[in-house]
């Protein structure tokens, strides 16, 4: 079976500094890639290149063996990206935000109240996002994983501002996604405890 997500000779240069070069990665269904490294070592840059938001200096990102620039919309349909920014509107309610997320992606047939319950935001459906705490906003941002269907989850520091209980809850969710044949790429300064899963570690500082 060929790998779902691959990189071929990927390199990234920012302001004349080489962040990484000649990177060859290969991720199969059910694997999670944990990108580690110091601040400024290129973690976010790598993630943005994988999503296609940024272009690499050289090399290719391959999805099921084809460059993502060729796959186009079919690739974007398979990607769920939770970036450094939450990607939710503060002047909309939680439910309105989730409806927007579903409209832009491939919606899963799930009741939105139930989805909010899954990220511990039950009863917050009609609250404006502006009234939520930082951790609650982050949980709402991560709720996009629950309401849309995508094989590849790419997450930049998903656990920022989350408490321990929420972190554990999302790690369980990640494990379930991997069991269903999904792929996850994430950066995190927190320790990941997912003993059941096939964790690949990549340290950009070495």
């Amino acid at each position, binding site marked *: 079976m060929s790998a779902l997500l691959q990189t071929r000779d990927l390199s990234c240069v920012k302001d004349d500094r080489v962040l990484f070069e000649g990177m060859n990665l290969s991720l199969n269904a059910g694997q999670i890639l944990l990108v580690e490294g110091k601040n400024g070592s290129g973690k976010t840059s790598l993630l*943005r290149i994988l*999503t*296609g*938001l*940024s*272009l690499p200096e050289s090399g290719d990102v391959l999805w099921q063996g084809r460059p993502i620039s060729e796959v186009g*919309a*079919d690739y*974007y*349909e398979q*990607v769920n*990206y939770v*970036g*450094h*920014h*939450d*990607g*939710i*509107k*503060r*002047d*909309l309610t939680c439910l*309105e935000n989730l*409806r*927007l*997320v579903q*409209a*832009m*992606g*491939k*919606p*899963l*047939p799930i009741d939105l109240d139930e989805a909010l319950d899954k990220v511990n935001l039950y009863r917050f459906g009609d609250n404006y996002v502006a009234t939520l705490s930082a951790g609650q906003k982050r949980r709402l941002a991560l709720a996009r994983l629950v309401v849309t*269907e995508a094989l590849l989850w790419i997450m930049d520091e998903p656990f920022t501002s989350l408490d321990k209980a929420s972190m554990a809850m999302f790690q369980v969710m990640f494990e379930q996604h991997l069991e269903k044949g999904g792929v996850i790429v994430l950066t995190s300064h927190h320790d990941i405890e997912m003993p059941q899963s096939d964790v690949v570690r990549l340290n950009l500082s070495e």
Partner: protein
Amino acid sequence: MKRLSLSQAFWFLLRRDLLLAFRNRSEMANPLLFFVLVITLFPLAIGAEPNLLARIAPGIIWVAALLASMLSLDGIFRSDFDDGTLEQMLLSAHPVPVLVLAKVTAHWLVTGLPLLLVAPLLAMMLGLDEDAYGILLLTILLGTPVLSLIGSIGVALTVGLRKGGIILSLLVLPLYVPVLIFSSSAIDVAASGLPATAQISMMLAFLFLALSLSPVATAAALKMSMS
């Protein structure tokens, strides 16, 4: 569940932007207020000379409309850029130019359309010839969407810069000039009782050109700004 059809996604985004504009309505009223204020200041500054005011009315109204439009441009993508929803829009499986068109349409409905509603009142205040009212409304109806569409390219190019305000004006103003010339000329001609068909046809051509090309250019510029 299948993903939304393209037209559904378009309407969804349009409705969302209108809802957001409604929730920030005090901010959204700024361009309209600016438009009204600038035009009401002219008679005070120039003095009560009905003939002179009537003569320069087309120019005043259009310069004010143009500046009001520029004032509101940054709002098309700014908040979406800041909170990361723009990123998500670019990662959507829907074609980005269509989503861009939805956002620009919403922006025009909120900032351009109100000008159309108050323009006759202001024209009456300046003593514009009554024969020219129809053409005045027509130029605003055809011209302001062109301003929003061209402006969206400029905003998309500068949204990633922290202080893009001045560059935005320099980029966009030269492209606004043809709209200004043809629209004020059309009103001028109509006020002297001549047909303005030529000018209106040119403005229609501008509108269709901008409608078909600018969303593609804006989408490309947004991708550049994000990377």
